[in-house]
């Protein structure tokens, strides 16, 4: 028998309190029916012997202490799942909004998921060729990795994400399915539309499952969105054996929703007002990437976040960087000088790269080329700061060479354009060619054998003048 409770005892922001209720469990889902027949979902966030605190996903607008009936569903928030979810569009709480009706569920899963047992994981090793030189060569994306894009408002992170989806080829294909799960948290309507249009144009829309919580949708629903998207992704990856690329944007909006919710609960704030559990909460999202034993599928995550005021030490990018396996940082100066994608390579990093490149994956010279490019570009920065003080004329010959290398590197290697798709061979050859503009003695991260094989200053001179 379903017990229904009439009325509420207290309403405070997105939270409502229900007294004299029985048999309510923590994290359970309840549906609140208003007098006009509309229904809202709520989740138990605190429970006492005779009292429960619920968080209403669609907001509490229009609720009063008397105009509601509440029924508890006896289970945590679950998402109905099926292979048919590809090609469909859902709202932030996982309900279809494309007018094609409910999906026929093969299974339902708790959207909070369970942590993957570390001994059941398979260490990710296969790289994903994105066709973007800066990423492929210097911060290689590995299947099963979580690699966020740290961006700022106005930068081309969306374009980059679309390009990755369009060009991403998974090396060693085995004819397996590849699909995209897209979770949008608090993004603008046109941004969501941009993604949809781009997916359509590139012909992948039928392989994309979209979960949309737009910026004017209820904030509390935003807390569910990444979890719904990842539950869908895990199902497709680990039960349907597909390779899933999950794009989550924008994690900063998500964290802000969490902050709003936390402060309405009256919790003690940590840094910048974010709740003390922000790290654990973000981890419960990001850690849902990887490969598990007994399944040939994988979940790869590319979360996108905009750094408020381009500040990488802001709690959201900071904590994200501690959880994810590297980061791709976009740079405003590069962007302003017309370089696309404006990847700032020095702070960018892929932690899984070292085991997924080299012979058998990309090419045996990959690591050495990447190390030397990083080291050389770091010296470019030194030369530039020196030049800004004493003027470029006064620089030593070596520093001048670095100045030249720096601008060539940005112009030809980083700057590649939205339409260009480079193979890993092209990328590495271009890297060596650029390094060949430097004096041979400066290449201290390369051994003699590789220098002999790849260093060709004449060819570089022909190409770059």
């Amino acid at each position, binding site marked *: 028998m379903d017990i229904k409770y009439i009325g509420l005892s207290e309403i405070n922001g997105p939270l409502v309190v229900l007294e004299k209720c029985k048999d309510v469990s923590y994290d359970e889902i309840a549906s609140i029916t208003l007098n006009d027949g509309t229904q809202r979902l709520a989740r138990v966030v605190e429970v006492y012997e005779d009292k429960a605190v619920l968080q209403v996903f669609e907001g509490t607008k229009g609720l009063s202490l008397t105009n509601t009936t509440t029924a508890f569903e006896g289970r945590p928030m679950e998402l109905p799942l099926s292979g048919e979810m590809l090609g469909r569009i859902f709202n932030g709480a996982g309900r279809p909004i494309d007018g094609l009706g409910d999906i026929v569920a093969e299974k339902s899963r708790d959207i909070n998921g369970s942590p993957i047992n570390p001994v059941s994981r398979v260490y990710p090793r296969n790289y994903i060729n994105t066709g973007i030189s800066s990423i492929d060569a210097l911060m290689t994306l590995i299947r099963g990795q979580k690699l966020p894009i740290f961006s700022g408002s106005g930068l081309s992170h969306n374009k980059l994400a679309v390009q990755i989806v369009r060009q991403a080829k998974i090396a060693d294909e085995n004819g397996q399915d590849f699909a995209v799960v897209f979770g949008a948290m608090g993004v603008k309507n046109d941004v969501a539309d941009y993604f949809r249009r781009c997916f359509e144009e590139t012909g992948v829309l039928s392989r994309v499952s979209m979960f949309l919580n737009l910026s004017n949708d209820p904030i509390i629903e935003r807390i569910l969105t990444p979890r719904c998207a990842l539950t869908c992704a895990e199902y497709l990856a680990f039960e349907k054996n597909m390779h899933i690329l999950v794009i989550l944007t924008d994690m900063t909006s998500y964290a802000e929703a969490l902050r709003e919710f936390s402060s309405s609960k009256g919790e003690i704030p940590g840094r910048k007002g974010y*709740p003390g559990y922000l790290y654990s909460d973000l981890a419960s999202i990001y850690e849902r990437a990887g490969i598990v034993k007994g399944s040939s599928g994988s979940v790869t995550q590319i979360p996108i976040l905009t750094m408020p005021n381009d500040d990488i030490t802001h709690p959201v990018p900071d904590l994200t*960087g501690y959880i994810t396996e590297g980061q791709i940082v976009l740079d405003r100066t590069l962007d302003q000088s017309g370089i696309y994608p404006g990847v700032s390579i020095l702070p960018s990093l892929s932690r899984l790269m070292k085991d997924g490149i080299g012979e058998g994956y990309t090419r045996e010279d990959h690591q050495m080329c990447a190390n030397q490019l990083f*080291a050389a570009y770091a010296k470019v920065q030194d030369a530039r700061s020196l030049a800004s003080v004493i003027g470029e004329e006064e620089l030593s010959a070596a520093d001048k060479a670095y100045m030249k290398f720096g601008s060539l590197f940005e112009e030809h290697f980083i700057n590649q354009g939205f339409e260009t798709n480079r193979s890993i061979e092209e990328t590495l050859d271009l890297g060596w060619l650029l390094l060949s503009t430097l004096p041979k003695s400066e290449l201290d991260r390369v051994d003699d054998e590789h220098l002999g094989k790849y260093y060709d200053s004449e060819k570089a001179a022909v190409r770059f003048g």
Partner: protein
Amino acid sequence: MTTDKIYSINGPVVTVRDSVSFSMQEMVYVGNKRLIAEVIRVSAKETTIQVYEGTTGLKPGEPVFGTGAPMSALLGPGILDNMYDGIERPLKKLEEISGAFIGDGAEVSSLDTQKKYNVTMTVKTGDKLSAGDIYCTCPETALIVHKCMLSPLSRGGEVIWTAEDGGYTVNDVVCKVKDELGRVEELTLCQRWPIRTPRPCAQRLPMSRPLITGQRVIDTIAPIAKGGTAAIPGGFGTGKTMTQHQLAKWCDADIIVYIGCGERGNEMTQVLEEFAELIDPHTNRPLTDRTTMIANTSNMPVAAREASIYTGITLAEYYRDMGYHIAIMADSTSRWAEALREISGRLEEMPAEEGFPAYLPSRISEFYERAGYVKTLNGKEGSVTIIGAVSPQGSDFSEPVTQNTKRFVRCFWALDKALAYARHYPAINWMSSYSEYTDELAGYYSANVSADFMEVRQQISNILATENSLMEIVKLMGTDVLPDDQKLLIETARVVRVGFLQQNAYHKDDTYVPLEKQYLMMKTILEYYELSKQALAKGVDAGKIMSNGFSEKLIKIKYDIPNDKPELFEQYSRQMAEWYSSAASEVV
């Protein structure tokens, strides 16, 4: 049957009303699923319990069962070569029970109860035993002999019965001891110990032996002693985990306890895979034979993350009592501090700095104070060395966890973002790192490596320090304005930085470098510096000296001279001596 029922649930915090049956830090089982939990606050009206597993689906009114004992770790053979979660549940067993995703309420024994160990009794009837004494041994892995000891709290007494040598499981009784009052204690291969209580020792000894890591910047610039404490702070991407992995792989401890506290799942998998393949240079056995891992990844329950640090150190102390040298890698203590903050927030305690509870410093010091070089109760020498990674928020070393850690550790290896960006690894900044152990260890280095080791080390440090101050000028004006002797110093410092401090973890020789080679490398670099200085004084052209190619040769020396051929260094000395004497003779 219990009458205690759950009153409220808020995340991992559960309360029970009007109960007097619980004691502080008692381990309890919560709810019908019997989730593992610990009592953290007791009052007449309300008992607060922190649950180590997910509380989704838990209802008020469900029962709470007391165990009467504090949260304890089960200690016995089978710990090594295993991987546990934060409350000592073996992850492989959990995988068998609930598959790739960890379920709730799974009760499993920490040790394999079926496996038989080949036990050799070391006592006989009539022997007198006291707390901490060893009564039997068994090979645990190919490397480590497990020694079963009386609990430190045992009353001891006279052995009245022993089993025959042979195969026994951890729960079989192998020995009986009768104390003065005639009470009989039955001894199995295992014992329990509360994780938050340090295991006692007979005496703390001074630390005079280094933990040799084979990492040049650590062993020479900021060495750590066996039984010492070190912190590795660094923002993300600076190589904390990489440094910890290198230390775990190569340091000369007998046993490694690796605590992955709130870190990445894939990283733990990597450790697991890599350690099984890697061969320990000291013993020629896979590293897993001497390693135990605690993996409580960032998405596993936060309360268990808080406990994982204590579980790890309890395991370490247990092996220390057998007379082994243990190194603990805790990655990362900041996540542990955040777990404290999170739970403190749920308890609505008054926050101090940045939302951290006011007891943060005392918790950090309690943890690091459990390290030490000791004489155990049974008269052996053992040590626990703690190396804790710190992940400062926003890479800002002035935040509370880094600052408080700095107060309680004696070795500080500061990782530097600028070095990491330039891919200078290990990115340990030689200027801001320090070790308070250098004086205590000087004797060891002089006796075992070379009498002038400390002097050579000091000269290298001086070169780096002088370079650091010269760099201020160079940044503004370039190197051209400097006089020749300072140019030479800058060049020598570059050789030290690139050739000596920078170390390639992926190179077969360079990943671990014995102390002798470290010393010879420094010595050869200093020789180059001295010869060049003398040549300058004799009037040899500075440009000629700088371009003589020796600096490049010295930078590559780490790859060119294999670890087992130190005699090759002489060739370099000879070549340099020849070049400089002929250069000097050419000066008119």
